[in-house]
């Protein structure tokens, strides 16, 4: 199987969480001898090549971060330049976010179905998963702990050819956290997580509190 994979993240490739996810996903996908070509839309210089690959292939995976509940504006700009295809072309999606609960991704997921229909293609399902913000700020084993499970998803996609198997649904995790866990996480948000974010900010050269209000 050959897949054209288009990374719709506007973030430059070296800082792209979606790219780190794809590194693992493609490692799994290629295990059985499958091949892929990757296009990252953050580099507008490759848009013509990505468009050509979209036109000439029938197994397309779009990977994207959730931006304000839907597709990032930059990716939409690219999508608007695509020609309509036919049902021989299958569009599958990897949708990832910082928010942890599966419920956070459902509106964006719904749009991906609409998008597929608008492009006259066949929908191959969406692999949804949140809690990925840490990919940006962690390195090594800590980052791998978040991204490594995508390898198995790549292997499974290679077997199934789409994202409809129950294992993909399980991969998302809970739709909503149960109340005791919400209370515990809320406590973390108010204490250690807040401190951790401020520490990361300092490492990035920030000299202001994260709640700073420049336009107050």
């Amino acid at each position, binding site marked *: 199987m050959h897949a054209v994979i288009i990374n719709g*993240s*506007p*973030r*430059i490739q070296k*800082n792209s969480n979606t790219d780190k996810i794809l590194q693992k996903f493609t490692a799994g996908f290629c295990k059985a001898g499958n091949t892929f070509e990757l296009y990252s839309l*953050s580099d507008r210089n490759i848009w013509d090549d990505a468009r050509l690959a979209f036109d000439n292939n029938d197994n397309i995976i779009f990977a994207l*971060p959730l*931006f*304000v*509940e*839907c*597709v*990032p*504006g*930059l990716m*939409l*700009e690219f*999508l*608007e330049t695509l020609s309509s295809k036919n049902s021989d072309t299958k569009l599958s999606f990897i949708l990832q976010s910082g*928010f*942890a*609960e599966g*419920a*956070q991704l459902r*509106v964006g997921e*719904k*749009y991906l179905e*609409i*998008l597929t*229909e*608008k*492009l006259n293609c066949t929908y191959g399902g969406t692999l949804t998963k949140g809690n990925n913000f840490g990919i*940006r700020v962690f390195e090594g084993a800590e980052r791998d702990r978040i991204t490594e499970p995508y390898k198995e998803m790549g292997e499974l996609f290679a077997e199934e050819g789409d994202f409809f198997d129950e294992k993909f649904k399980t991969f998302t995790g809970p739709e*909503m956290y149960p109340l005791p866990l*919400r209370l515990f*996480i*809320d406590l973390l*948000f*108010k204490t250690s*997580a*807040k401190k951790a*974010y401020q520490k*990361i*900010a300092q490492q*990035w*050269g*920030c000299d*202001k*509190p*994260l*709640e*700073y*209000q*420049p*336009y*107050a």
Partner: protein
Amino acid sequence: MIVIVNTTDNKEISALIQTDLEEKKVEYKIFEADTMNISPCLGCNYCWLKTPGNCMINDDYEQIVKLLAKGGQMWVISDTALGFINHKGKNIYDRLMPIVTMNLEFRDKLMRHIMRYDTRPDVGVIFQGEADKEFLDTWNKKVASNMNSEPLGVYEVNEIREAIACMQ
């Protein structure tokens, strides 16, 4: 303050809104974003972690977000593409991130960002062209929910009077 961001080249919509809002004697500002320099959000997270509240992109969006930080209403007038608002309209939403902080909390049983300011803009869409209106409405409601504000609804251009009736 009612902030109207017209990302289309249809100035007649703006003119109509302007006439009606003058009559209503409400405070408003119309941005003709089609002729402004507004980039897509790059997802760099600088507005959360490096320069809190400030976008690192130096373009014309700053004058819009400065007003939105004070709450009120944001109306995005957008052309459509692929069943949704087009990328110019979506960019206006994506660039709202500086009024959101990195910090999180649970509201309505879901994880949400804590807003940077005590005042938040309610959000509405006026669109011209073919779109999945039901989805657009669901999406706009979810956006408002995450910003701890109210959805103002989504209106086709031929429903502009209904939208203007909500501008106050």
